[in-house]
């Protein structure tokens, strides 16, 4: 009886592993593809895209790195992403907390506004926003950070709102009685308690800001302080103006992907747990 069951189970498990293995291959295939073709010439890429490169020729990667001004672009993107995420986290968490603690009509209305704004697609505000920013003199990196702050607000406030409800009021009262001022109260007592959602928020926002194309395109355009995705786009359209310069695109995309890969490998546990935790509560 036992033997029969465990071999049936083994077969089932075997099938599962096989299916999942196939899916995993499918998932990773584009990355493999990207990697392998970053060492080939245009001709080789078109002729034999799936096979390993004839030789590991690093000139394409080097060329791509130059064309997309790797160092500069990474720094620009890093500055923008970090600054924007910090801004979003600070502003949203404080606001959400206040909304939870101060249950007035005003704060409810505010919460409603923020949530409703999640429905506004970027295209609806795209052109007037750029217009407005120009008039305010904010059509630059600084303004871009502020804009990300604004766009990240809605979802982040929404996520924080749910979590702050679970922080016991008594804890806060105790801290105030002990003589903490508002900032100590928030940053030392309340904020650390919502770490999981902070992790989620940081990661979710960082991801879309790092990879974002449209907003930097409209604000920075072809200026010197391009982000990584923007540099990729311009390198593609300027060189090989007509047709696709695959020998530039593949290494360039690979370069864009590598920082993410590195961060991911180091922080994968946090990232996945953070997202899983945050997603359902939201």
């Amino acid at each position, binding site marked *: 009886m036992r033997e029969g069951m465990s071999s049936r189970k083994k077969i*089932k*498990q075997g099938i599962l*592993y096989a299916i*999942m293995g196939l899916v*995993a291959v499918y*998932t*990773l295939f*584009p990355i493999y*593809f*990207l990697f392998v073709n970053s060492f080939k010439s245009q001709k080789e890429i078109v002729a034999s*895209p799936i096979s390993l490169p004839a030789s590991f020729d690093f000139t394409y990667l080097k060329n791509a790195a130059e064309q997309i001004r790797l160092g500069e672009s990474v720094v620009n993107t890093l500055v923008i992403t970090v600054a924007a995420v910090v801004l979003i986290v600070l*502003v949203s968490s*404080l*606001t959400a907390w*206040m*909304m939870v*603690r*101060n249950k*007035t009509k005003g*704060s409810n209305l505010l919460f409603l506004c923020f949530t*409703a*704004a999640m*429905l*506004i*697609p*970027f*295209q*609806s*505000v795209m*052109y*007037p*926003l750029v217009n*407005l920013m120009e008039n*305010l003199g904010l059509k630059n990196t600084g303004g871009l950070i502020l804009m990300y*702050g*604004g766009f990240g*607000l*809605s979802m982040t406030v929404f996520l924080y709102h749910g979590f702050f409800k679970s922080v016991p*009021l008594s804890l806060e*009262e105790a801290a105030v009685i002990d003589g903490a001022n*508002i900032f100590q109260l928030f940053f030392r007592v309340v904020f650390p308690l919502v770490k999981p959602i902070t992790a989620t928020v940081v990661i979710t926002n960082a*991801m879309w800001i790092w*990879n*974002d*194309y*449209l907003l930097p395109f409209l604000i920075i355009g072809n200026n010197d302080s391009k982000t990584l*995705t923007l540099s*990729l786009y311009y390198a*593609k359209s300027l060189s090989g103006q007509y047709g*696709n310069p695959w020998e530039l695109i593949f290494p360039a*995309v690979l370069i864009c*992907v590598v920082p*993410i*890969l590195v961060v*991911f490998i180091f922080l994968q546990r946090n*990232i*996945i747990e953070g*997202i*899983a935790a945050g997603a*359902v509560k939201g």
Partner: protein
Amino acid sequence: MEKYYKKWFKVLSLPAVILFVVVILVPFVMGVAYSFTAWRGSYFKGSEHWYGALIGLKNYIKVFNSQKFISAFLYTIKFTVVAVIVKNIVSLALALMVRRIGKGKGIFRTIYFFPNLLGGLAMGFVWSFIFQNVFSMMLFGEDSPIHIPFLTNMLQDPNKAVFAMALMATWQTAGYLMLIYLNGLNNIPEDLYEAASIDGATAIQKFRHITVPMLMPAFTIVFFLTLSSSFKMLDENLALTNGDFGTRMLSLQILLTTRENTPPNYGMAQAQAVIFFILIAVVSIAQVIITKRKEIEA
């Protein structure tokens, strides 16, 4: 304490309010106003200021008569339907499978999640090559081992392209959605299943009567996410087909409206954007109401 919070509320929420007003509210209102004018980007046709160039509903009428807009709208709906179904099925299936296997859960989770971190535009270029060359010429083409006409030249036919884009979109998000379903599945108490087994329920019955109802909250989230993101999709559309062969979706349509006319008709583009917002709002709200109701019933 109440007074304490009340005092600080205004100060602490001020930055958020300012950002919100400047970045979202004002442009949105301006956008709605501009959609009623003859806005041309660098100027307003007929006047120095926007209020002098009001043309009433002309832009909206043009939009509703515009073949391009209507096609983009219908195509977006087509795509959204397919994408939502595929994404949900795949991510749920993945979640169910990951739960069942003995070892290696973490590795598989990580692998499936990874594409979610990659940018749509960049990977769109890679996928376009895969569809054009690898699928069409190497793997499934006429001279290749397995000839599957459906999978060749997917980007050159609007119907096939729906699936091509859905394929890529699923590749990107399945891992992320799988995590949400996993979480939901993990929250279903084991004893419910055990009790059902004792009562003699089959796997399918267990799925229908325990798993599905208990998963409703997760399903609501996933459905909401996939619905709105598919409807709004831009980067992948731009990179894979650039709207060729009738594959232009709404976001791309708005972006391209200003590029196709000289002088560029920003007023009409803005009208389209406003309509876009209304569509999304209606769909999202309806969907939330419906699923919340089902949740309560369940």
